């Protein structure tokens, strides 16, 4: 069976990017041309696709490969779990990238990379040829590190909801179905993990929901880390707001689960929950490991900070949660959006025969809701250090909120809408 998409893929494969409409009028000279393939349409991948088109005046052809039909945002998804928002509120389409920016968006899955031939093989059977490849694959879970959670049946009973989508809705349903007086237990893996303040925000929001609707219930936060990883003083304060409902247990690394009885075995303790929510340890998305890119700690991709190019594999750039982070750099959607812009600028320079800019700057902000209205933030700015060859946090800059407040509740929701537009429209 042949459809338009197959045809497009074959033409990309056979004739190279020169057959793409985006390239047909491409001027020779300083304006960069070429074909960039982006894998993953999240905060990193969608942003890099748009900015490559925008900053090249549509001179560079961009194909985005994403397995999901629509983008669903992880930031704000904890508000879906608490019932304050719906999945529709955090779901956006790729039409802006297609229609406004002329990105070719393929709903497909990247299977394998041939870095020498500069091709990417897709699950549908097609092959894409690229001049530069950007991987923004996010994370994949290491279910094998949690005995009892290896099977799909176990993973249906014990949810992570650490990628927004069906799991977010399913966790919401489990909480709705829980009896008053039930126990919701959340396990947090050792840092680094995606979204450092996310688990504590989730604990607060679930406690907020239970306090309002099922006040006899309990929230147990089982943290593998020795202390709260992000915004410690502010979350400690927020936890006091939920005294009697929320209990925080640091140094509680998960060793094993039993899906049938929803039991978590920890180092010194065993917990039986009505809703057991396990965030398993994770690593760079599978495609990065499969592609043979050099990893650090067998988990995160080692990149050059001027270009986000893999140190081992020329032509392959990696951004977002999948990379080995710079000092104090969080794995966040905001940060992936920033990686994307540095990578886009570097790729356009490289395609035009120039070196990447020598002085990249990125900044991060994570807003967290401590209840349905009040928010706290952590912010940082990171500038390139030519001696260390990595971006370093600027001393004296950044910081956290003075206290949780409603004004930042409004700013947090505006942040989400503006950054979604910055990546997708």
């Amino acid at each position: 069976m042949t459809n338009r998409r197959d045809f497009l893929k074959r033409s990309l494969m056979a004739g190279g990017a020169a057959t793409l409409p985006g390239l047909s009028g491409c001027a020779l000279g300083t304006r960069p041309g070429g074909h960039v393939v982006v894998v993953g349409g999240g905060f990193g991948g969608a942003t890099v696709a748009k900015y490559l088109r925008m900053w090249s005046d549509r001179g560079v052809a961009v194909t985005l490969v994403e397995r999901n039909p629509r983008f669903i945002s992880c930031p704000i998804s904890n508000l879906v779990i608490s019932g304050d928002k719906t999945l529709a509120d955090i779901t956006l389409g790729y039409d802006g990238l297609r229609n406004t920016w002329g990105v070719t968006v393929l709903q497909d899955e990247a299977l394998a990379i041939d870095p020498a031939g500069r091709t990417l093989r897709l699950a549908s059977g097609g092959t894409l040829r690229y001049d530069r490849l950007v991987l923004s694959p996010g994370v994949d879970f290491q279910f094998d590190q949690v005995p009892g959670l290896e099977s799909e049946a176990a993973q249906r009973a014990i949810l992570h909801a650490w990628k927004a989508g069906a799991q977010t809705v399913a966790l919401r349903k489990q909480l709705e179905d829980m009896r008053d007086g039930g126990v919701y237990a959340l396990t947090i893996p050792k840092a680094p993990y995606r979204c450092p303040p996310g688990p504590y925000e989730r604990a607060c929001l679930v406690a907020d929901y239970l306090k309002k609707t099922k006040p006899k219930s309990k929230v147990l936060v089982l943290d593998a880390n020795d202390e709260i990883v992000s915004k410690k003083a502010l979350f400690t304060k927020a936890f006091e707001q939920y005294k009697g409902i929320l209990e925080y247990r640091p140094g509680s690394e998960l060793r094993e689960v039993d899906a049938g009885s929803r039991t978590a075995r920890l180092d010194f303790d065993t917990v039986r929950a009505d809703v057991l929510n396990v965030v398993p340890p994770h690593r760079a998305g599978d495609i990065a490991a499969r592609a043979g890119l050099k990893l650090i700690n067998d988990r995160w991709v080692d990149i050059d900070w001027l270009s986000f190019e893999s140190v081992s594999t020329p032509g392959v750039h990696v951004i977002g949660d999948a990379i080995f982070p710079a000092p104090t750099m969080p794995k966040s959607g905001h940060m992936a959006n920033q990686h994307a812009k540095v990578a886009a600028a570097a790729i356009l320079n490289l395609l035009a025969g120039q070196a990447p800019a020598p002085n990249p700057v990125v900044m991060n902000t994570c807003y967290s809701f401590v209840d349905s209205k009040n928010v706290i933030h952590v912010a940082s700015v990171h500038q390139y250090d030519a001696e260390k060859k990595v971006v370093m946090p600027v001393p004296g800059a950044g910081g956290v909120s003075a206290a949780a407040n409603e004004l930042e509740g409004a700013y947090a929701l505006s942040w989400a809408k503006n950054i979604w537009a910055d990546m997708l429209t």
Partner: protein
Amino acid sequence: MKLLRWTPLALALLAGAGTASAQDKPDPNLARNLAATCAGCHGTGGRTVPGSAVEPLAGADSAVLMQKLRDFRSGARPATIMHQISKGYTEAQLELIAAYFAARK
């Protein structure tokens, strides 16, 4: 049209040459790249979505933007977050950013 292909050797030569020339002449995209770090909250090119609680920056007067940024840094202008963000950039970087947003329509 033949597509550009980079061999590792060509890249190494390029990187060497590029570093030298980067020091010689200013990067024409520096202001664009720096201003892009603000877009997560203030919108692409400083244009926010309708109803945004965060102000747009596109088309604002650059001297006024610069004064606001200085006042964030000194603490003269009350802020939830801009006092912390503005301290992460040099005065020269903020000048470039302010001029870039002022030039957006």
